[in-house]
């Protein structure tokens, strides 16, 4: 295996939710990647990876969005995404979308092979460690796509261990789905709520001040439930903590 280039040109795909709801996750990603020695490019044509179409069964729509996204991303050394499920869409599902289209399949596979969830990239590819401190206790939820489709489990914990003053507390059922499920939470809100209620209970019982995870969708679901139930647990994307941005407004707090 050839060693990674000293300063790889990394395309940051911020994801539609980060773009719309919480831009500081994008800036945290940018900051961490630069600290890890990357030259970060934010391709201007990016929108959404197409996951809502893909998960709704709208294969043609998903493929059309995928083609655009591949075109935008393919000219870089790596593609880094601050979301396990969006990264998995590109890495796992884009190639599947072009099973019967060899030309696009080749391009999809090439992009897939260099697409990473951000914490996996920082930890495994760049061997980066954070240089920041935060006096707090936190608990970590493993979002399902990152965990099961990309094997993101140890990487965020290894990185978070490097944050001075931060104590990680175990979360009971940390690998259990929070009930977000993308379009699922809109299509079946009552079932989603029942699942989220149990997750919020487990987070509260962890005794941590902060809830961390790697996917904004799941975080919005869990934080929204915690807040509705009157919990004082505050939620951040883990990359915000790693980039030294954990002293600002948490999810749902107006900056």
């Amino acid at each position, binding site marked *: 295996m050839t060693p990674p280039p000293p300063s790889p040109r990394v395309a940051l795909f911020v994801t539609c939710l980060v773009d719309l709801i919480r831009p500081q996750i994008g800036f945290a990603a940018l900051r961490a990647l630069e600290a890890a020695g990357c030259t970060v490019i934010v391709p201007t044509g990016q929108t959404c990876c197409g996951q809502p179409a893909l998960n709704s069964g709208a*294969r043609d729509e998903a493929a059309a969005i995928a083609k655009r996204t591949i075109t935008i991303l393919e000219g870089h050394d790596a593609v880094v995404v601050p979301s396990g499920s969006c990264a998995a869409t590109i890495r796992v599902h884009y190639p599947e979308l072009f099973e019967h289209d060899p030309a696009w399949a080749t391009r999809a596979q090439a992009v897939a092979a260099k697409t990473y969830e951000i914490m996996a990239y920082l930890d495994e590819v760049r061997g980066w460690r954070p240089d920041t401190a935060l006096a707090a206790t936190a608990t970590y939820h493993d979002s399902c796509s990152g965990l099961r489709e990309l094997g993101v489990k140890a990487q965020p914990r290894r990185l978070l261990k490097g944050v001075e003053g931060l104590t990680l507390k175990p979360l009971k059922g940390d690998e259990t789905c929070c009930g977000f499920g993308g379009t699922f939470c809109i299509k079946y809100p009552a079932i989603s709520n029942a699942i989220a209620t149990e997750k919020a209970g487990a987070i509260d019982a962890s005794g941590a001040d902060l809830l961390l995870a790697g996917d904004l969708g799941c975080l919005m679901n869990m934080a929204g439930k915690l807040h509705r139930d009157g919990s004082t647990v505050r939620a951040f994307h883990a990359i915000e903590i790693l980039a030294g941005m954990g002293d600002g407004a948490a999810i749902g707090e107006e900056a």
Partner: protein
Amino acid sequence: MSASAFTRRADAALADPVLKIAVERTAGTAEAKRGIAVQHFAQFEQARVRGAAIKDHVIEHLGHYLEQFEAAATAAGAQVHWARTADEACRIVIEICQAAGAKTVARSKSMMGEEIGLPHALAEAGIGRIETDLAEHIIQLAGERPSHIVWPAMHKTSEQVSALFKQHHLEPHNEETIPAMAESARRHLRDGMLGADVGISGANFLIADTGTICTVTNEGNAELSLVPPRVHIVTAGIEKLVPSMGHAVQLLRLLARSATGATLTQYTTFYTGPKRQDDSDGPQAMHIVLIDNGRSTMREEGLAEMLRCIRCGACMNHCVVFRQIGGHAYGGTYPGPMGAVLTPALDGLAKNRDLPNACTLNGKCQEVCPVKIPLPTLLRGWRERSWREGLEPVSVRQGIAAWAWVAQRPRLYRTAVRAAIFGMRRFGRGWIKALPMASGWTAHRDMPAPAAESFMRRYAKGER
């Protein structure tokens, strides 16, 4: 969107606190015990790979193994029948019962029997039915259907069962503790089992080279309901075939651990043909009904991997949705993730389109499946078909199509994001308590309001 039948059933289940307790007790215990069993089975992953390979091989060469099984079973003295559909299968079973002059049958729990509607067919034919599995007995008394493929009465608490037994069982009425309830059921069921004319079972495995069928139970009810009667009828799906006993044993090692966490079921019995001349007991006749009921179509239409299923129930025990709504809400014979794949195949996609959609695609089911069925992929396949066939609600179709169109036009998309930020922030800063376009969300939880400007806009302005 008007509430579908599935949503109404799910809502009713969510509103039932007793159901939640009952499901959690059994599924929670099963999950914990399976976890320990798998931990102590060093070659579990290799066993899964082998298990999947055995089933794939058989499914690929189904014709060969079906012929081999038929020849071997016939040579052992059994009669083999073929049924293309559920109705055909029921008709064959009823005709055998009638030819045997059967007044009552003892049935050993079988999901295939449920799938083809055998309890109903027997009732229509005026043939008495004794359910010999304890949980099946409970739901027969309650007049219900199974809610789980391993624990049919999972939805009932012991308190509810106690009340049911007091109502239906003979004296004495002291069914308060679980041992007392089991004793009461034993008294009630034993005479029925021994007095039945016909015993009906399913099969966990059909062993091709010897024509043997295998059943697994933890109560010994299969043996007691299949050996004494004059006739033994087996209803089995054609995907239950394995080449040899050795292959069945490999799958048995996966089955019990995945289902209950036990190393092996209490009773694992192999039946080859009816009573032979020198046998001390056994039925005079054995009939094996091999049922397709959509399986050949599934094999041809991209669901071949589903035919690996050995009916352990691990997928539903570990499913966050099943754990909230239980089995009845799924509306079919099979609940949970495997049911969400099977029911549209057995009962049509149009009236079951909710099932593959009511899943978070978290992948836990695939992770625990002992034969590595890619359940999320198969569920996605149904979603794609539902979309292609125009079965998804108009609001979803139009919403996704419009959004996808905009998502391919970055400049328009940026404008749409600005509009969305403006629109959402009118309903709140920080936390939004109620958002009309996402009322399903804000009915139950708060929604973080978007920041004043999008990432792409701030980045374009030079912010870093």
